[in-house]
Structure formats: C-alpha cells, structure tokens
C-alpha cells in the first residue's frame, strides 16, 4: 500500500442508479471497515478532498471503487468527461474495484446504448481496450447491486495486504466460486425436480417454471445472506442472474424450456447427465415434497 498509514479510498460514480452505494451503506460494520482507509471522496459520505480537487485529478488514490457503466465519450458530470476522471484515478490507483454489474460488464445501463456503453474492463464478457492497462489491479464485484459484504471482504483483504484469488473475469473466487444455488433452502426440491406452484411458497424449486437462474449464476447470495437474513430464492422469488455478464436477460420470471427441458443447464453439468438424472428422479413421488411444509407430520 502507500506510504500513508491508511490507504486512500476514492469512490467514483459513472452512469449509475446509486444501487451499490446504497447497498454498501447497509453493511452493519460500515464504519469499522472504512476506518481502515482514508476516505478521499464518496458520493454520500464525507471525504477529505474537495470536489474541485477530485475533479482536477489532484488527489492521491490507492483504491479506486468505480460504480456505474462506462462510456468513453459523452457522459459529463460538473462539466467534466467522467471517463477522463476515471482514467486519471485508475492510473494512480494500486487497486480498482468495479462495484456492481454495470461497472463490471455494462449491466442495465448498457441497454440504453449497447454500442458505446460497457463495463470499465469488460463489455459483457469481452475484454475492452482498457483491460490490458488495468487488468493487473482489477477486482470485479458484479451484482445488481453487489452484496455489501462482498465489498467489505475485498476492502479488508486489501487493507491487510492479503492476496485475493480471482477468476478469469477478475471476480474473487471466495465470493463467486459458488453459484446462487449453493445454500438455497429449496435444494431438496431441485434434487427431486419439484417445481414451486407459485411465488411466495416455501415449497418447491423455482428453476423449472419460474425462471430461477441460481443454478448457473455465480454468487454467494445463499451463503452470505442479504441483510444477514434472507435471499431472493429463500423468499420465493427467482434469482435474476444479476451477477452474470449477460445480465439483464429477458423474461426473468419464466424458465425457457424446449419441450419441457430447461434450455440452460446448471453450471458445468452436461445436458446428458442432467437429463439422465431428471428422468430417474421424476419417476418417484416423495410424499414429503408433495405436501406443504407446515402440514407434513401433523
């Protein structure tokens, strides 16, 4: 890190809804985590630098957090081309964290101008021209929004000088090595291929009809719970695949099937293996899984 006792943290926003800013504010230990850093600038928290100094590119920066989709030309704030500001601090920083799917892959805002809007270093899954320059210091935290504890994991690892293992899209494997399916409370229903009958039910799996993308979406939403309490799938809403490069897909509440067969297989599972298993388990009717949880054993 820098010669300064605390690394300097700069949070910049590009084309964004503020979702990741707000998500991080929900962290129960927010100020304890930030106490390891000197906050230079943050969209809603107090920083040590003036806005004029930040816009002038005059402040130092060790860790740059970028939130929002990237556009090389034509997106200005306070009369300044935001991309030039990002380049200035990305060059200075020792680490760049792209917070959220927009900053990482392009995300929802890419839909407005697919040709010109992307993530900083990835355009969906393709590397952008900026990738080579920033790759050695890049950490991706996709999610719409990213989980506050994914950010705190990265910040605390960096502040303690620990190496973060990353995958080919620069996502920390400790956080994204899992699928959202991991830890889902509906896993028994997935195993036995029993669909939920509707939204909001505790029973049934959302993968077969309701569009759940958990089995092929990277993320630890069912391992590191949201608000330390729950997740989409736990409350009966399908995973929308918000951490994935191609997010957002269409028809988020409906599983695309070909003659009843899910068009997309669980991550890494060969279709033949999946279908063999499906044919076998569907041959059995398990009483416990066909009844309401609260009624069984009464």
């Amino acid at each position, binding site marked *: 890190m820098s010669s300064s006792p605390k690394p300097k943290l700069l949070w910049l926003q590009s084309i964004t809804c503020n979702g990741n800013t707000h998500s991080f504010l929900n962290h129960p230990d927010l100020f304890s985590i930030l106490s390891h850093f000197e906050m230079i600038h943050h969209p809603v928290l107090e920083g040590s630098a003036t806005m004029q100094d930040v816009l002038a590119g005059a402040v130092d920066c060790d860790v740059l957090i970028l939130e929002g989709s990237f556009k090389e030309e034509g997106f200005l704030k306070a009369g300044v081309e935001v991309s030039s500001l990002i380049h200035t601090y990305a060059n200075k920083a020792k680490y760049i964290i792209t917070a959220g799917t927009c900053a990482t892959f392009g995300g929802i805002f890419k839909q407005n101008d697919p040709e010109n809007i992307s993530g900083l270093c990835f355009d969906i899954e393709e590397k952008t021209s900026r990738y080579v320059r920033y790759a050695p210091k890049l950490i991706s935290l996709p999610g719409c929004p990213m989980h506050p504890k994914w950010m705190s994991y990265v910040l605390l690892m960096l502040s303690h000088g620990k190496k973060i293992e990353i995958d080919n899209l620069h996502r920390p494997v400790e956080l994204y090595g899992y699928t959202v399916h991991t830890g889902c409370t509906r896993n028994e229903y997935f195993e036995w291929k029993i669909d939920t009958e509707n939204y909001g039910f505790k029973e049934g799996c959302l993968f077969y009809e309701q569009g759940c993308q958990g089995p092929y979406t990277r993320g630890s939403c069912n391992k590191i719970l949201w608000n330390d309490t729950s997740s989409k799938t736990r409350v009966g809403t399908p995973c929308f695949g918000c951490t994935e490069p191609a997010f957002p897909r269409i028809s988020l509440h409906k599983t695309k099937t*070909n003659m009843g067969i899910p068009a997309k297989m669980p991550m890494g599972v060969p279709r033949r293996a999946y279908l063999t298993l499906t044919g076998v388990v569907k041959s059995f009717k398990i009483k416990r899984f066909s009844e309401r949880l609260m009624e069984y054993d009464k």
Partner: protein
Amino acid sequence: MKIAEKKALKRESIIQTALQLFSKNGFHKTTIPDIASKLQMSVGNLYNYFSSKDILAQEIIKYTSEALGEKIREVNMTEATAEEKIYQIVSIYFTMAEEKPEMIEYFLRVYLSNREVFSDGCEGMVCVSGFITEIMIFFDDSVSSGELRNQDFFSAFGLFMGYLGGMVFLKGENVLPKGIEHYIDDISRNIYHALKA
C-alpha cells in the same frame, strides 16, 4: 482374460439368452432353470449373477434401453436436420425390430405387460433412462434450432414413440401387409409433419 472380464461376458450372455426366452415365451412361462439350461450352466451359478428372475428382468430392460439409446446418441451427435434425424431414429427402431426383434418385443410384451415385476427398482423411467435421455436431447436440439414446435415433452414423446411401438406391435401380430422397412419413409414424414414448427 481377467476374471472380471470373463464374468462380464458371462453376465451379458445370460442377459441375451434370457432376453430371447422372455420375449419368445413370456416372462412367467420362462423359468431360471430354462435360462440356465440353454446356457449350459447350473441354476446355482446363474443365481451368482442375478439373485432373482425379477432382477434379471430389470437388468434386461436397462440393457435394451442402453443399446437403443447408444444408437440414437450417434444420431444426436451428427449435424443432421431434425427431419433427417427423425428418419434415422425411425430406421434404427424398425431395423432393430427386424434384426433383433427380441429387443423391442421385450419392451412391448414383457416390460409393459408385467408392470408388477418392475414396480420395485424400475419405477417410471428409471430403467429406460438410457433411451429416454437421448430422445430428450433430440427434442431439445430440434426445438432450439427452430425445426420442431415447442410443446410439452410427453405430447411429443407419445406421438413419436407410441407410433413406432404401435407399428412394431402390429408387426409382431403379423398383421402388416408389408415388411416394416417399407413404412420408414411415410412414418418418418408423418412424425416430422406432426412435430415441425
């Protein structure tokens, strides 16, 4: 030859012999001593391979399903159109009915006719998954490519396999005026037109 390989060969020869006898004489009229006698082995030794007649019957349906599935898998691996694949699958099924009638006969006259034998161990699709999986893959590929109409699996499966099974059943009853290979063209076309997008 290693002992394990010898045992595997012996096991397969028992399956093939039992398959022929069950298909020809029926499940209940065929006894374990009949099968052992045809193989010139002792009844006791045969039980070393299969602990009961029911277990043997279940292994046979898995064996025939895998054999048929293996051939359809080869079709699935090609770049052929859905229409061509339907033709090839129909050809495989009818050729098997012609050249190895016991394979199909077993399915129709033993497996489907003696459900109590298969109720514990071969529930639903458990013992025929080798074949069903390949049909699923064929449908999935053909809908993905836009060649077949998307619909419920069983409405398409029933149309396809019910048709083929029915024709082989008629062949077995000797009521078809022509050899079954004469029907490949028309039946393939009928199936394709019924399922196409």
